[in-house]
């Protein structure tokens, strides 16, 4: 098992803020809109340096999506910022008609996704956003794994024509991917080559998969760990190449089992390579208040749950 050294832990939302600020400097067409959560989304640096290209919308997310769609017509590349819950469920129809169906180049940037939002509880802990967004034709869905990758993804999607849903979060987690990485939309990232099982993880669960890999190594299981930062379009080639070797799969994500990464992989396997799959995610449930760590423990989104899933799936080979 490879080692993944890191010198600091950071939140992925700060990676978004840093990426947006850098984009502001290099691309004059990048504009940012925010629905009264500028601090939470870490958009202050962009707002302060480029006030003419920053639009405070107030607590009016539907309007924000429509404004962004309209701005693309003049060649602007709008990045909208609010919590994942208000970025998707609240504005699904606006995204569907004015952005996805209309093919508009809007980047929907969504923080505080999933259980790790913590104490605010289930009203704010969306676990269905990936499903909603990936069901939309034309929509690209990205869930990077740490600060550096979120920053790189933010910068990359400005040059990627078409609507994008970029999902990130609040907790401070190890920042282990390279600062100078080239982010390629739709390309899975091999983290650890292995032979016994393929673990496909996204977002905050990527680090948990690495921790699980170490625990599995102690048990004599050699896990292949792949970071699926782009859930749609899914890197089918990379997934199938890995599964052809390991012959069994575990998916891991901070999302409902319905509609998420595991669901996408299940479809792929059923069509092209039917082999055993176990899914780590939230099983048809809302969240609740608690610390992020308590919630990830209670809802089974941790390295121990991944290890158990691996043991189940290898037994089914």
């Amino acid at each position, binding site marked *: 098992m490879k080692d993944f050294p890191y010198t600091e832990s950071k939140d992925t939302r700060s990676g978004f803020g840093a990426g947006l600020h850098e984009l502001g400097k290099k691309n004059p067409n990048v504009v940012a809109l925010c629905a009264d959560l500028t601090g939470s989304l870490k958009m202050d640096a962009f707002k302060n340096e480029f006030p003419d290209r920053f639009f405070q919308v107030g607590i009016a997310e539907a*309007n924000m999506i*429509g404004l962004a*769609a*309209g701005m693309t017509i*003049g060649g*602007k590349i709008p990045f909208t910022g609010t919590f994942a819950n208000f970025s998707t469920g609240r504005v699904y129809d*606006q995204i569907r*008609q004015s952005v996805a169906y*209309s093919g508009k180049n809007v980047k929907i940037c969504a923080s505080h996704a999933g259980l790790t939002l913590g104490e605010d509880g289930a009203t704010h802990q969306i676990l269905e956003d990936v499903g909603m967004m990936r069901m939309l034709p034309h929509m690209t869905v990205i869930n990077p794994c740490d600060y550096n990758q979120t920053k790189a993804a933010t910068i990359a999607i400005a040059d990627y024509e078409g609507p994008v849903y970029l999902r990130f979060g609040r907790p401070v987690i190890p920042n282990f991917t390279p600062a100078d990485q080239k982010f390629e939309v739709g390309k899975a990232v091999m983290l650890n080559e292995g032979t016994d099982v393929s673990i496909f993880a996204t977002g905050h669960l990527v680090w948990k998969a690495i921790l699980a890999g170490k625990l599995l190594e102690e048990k004599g299981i050699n896990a292949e760990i792949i970071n699926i930062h782009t859930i749609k379009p899914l890197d089918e080639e990379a997934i199938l190449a890995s599964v052809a070797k390991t012959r069994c799969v575990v998916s891991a994500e901070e999302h409902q089992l319905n509609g998420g990464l595991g669901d996408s992989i299940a479809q792929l396997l059923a069509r092209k390579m039917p082999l055993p799959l176990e899914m780590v995610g939230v099983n048809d449930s809302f969240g609740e208040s608690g610390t992020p760590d308590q919630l990830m423990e209670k809802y089974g989104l941790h390295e121990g749950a991944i290890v158990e899933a691996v043991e189940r799936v290898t037994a089914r080979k």
Partner: protein
Amino acid sequence: MNPFNKNTEELTNVAYQVRRDILRMVHAVNSGHPGGSLGCTELLVALYFKIMDHNPKFNMSGTDEDLFFLSNGHISAAWYSVLARAGYFDVKELGTFRKLNSRLQGHPATHEHLPGIRIASGSLGQGLSVATGAAQAKKLNQDDKLVYVLMGDGELDEGQIWEAAMYAPHHKVDNLIAFIDHNGQQIDGPTDAIMNLGSLRAKFEAFGWKVLETNGNNFAELVPTIEEAKSLTGQGQPIMVVMHTQMGYGIDFMMGSHKWHGVAPNDAQLQQALLQAMETLGDY
């Protein structure tokens, strides 16, 4: 400059043909929305044949052109007819309205790349936001042309309209002229009975808009009002034009009722209606 710059008599002639197109289009597929289409004919004809600086050789970005957005997308038949008559695409294509493999979808869409359409509409309440965003992009681009948008009055039931209504004055979006097709009708009945709109002037003025009112079915009143609206742009406020119209205007048995909101005429009704809408530019 408007590429046609037609006078009132010429505009009236175009409007006759547009009404004829609308009636024949909805009749041919026994579906669509003739009532609102007929009621907004004067506005669309005035914008494309007199008011807007636009180029029928369409490009999506619309740089250095006036832009028009249709928020109440169900009156697509009127818009398609006006776009075709203005040269955006061949009038023969009007015969494909609402049919399989057509670019003329039931509600306007960009998906099939129909010239003249810059965003999908139909799910109500979104166009004012889109137009406001497009107007702000023009400002960022130092493009001094204007953005126009049309909404229905029933559409004002949607909450998003009021989000945008609050936003545009706050951000001083003063290159935006919005129209409300105030015919007092929506699908289930009169707006007064379904969801009372109260005073639209008072509402929008309270939100910070400059509000004008006019007869939306009379070129002699409508065109000067739009000219006045244009003269009020650039002064820190968006402009709202409340157009008093009649649903079904121009066809006697379709006027003043919600009954023809989403119902096409049958063969006999079509013949009766066409007698009131002269063929002035040649049928498609």
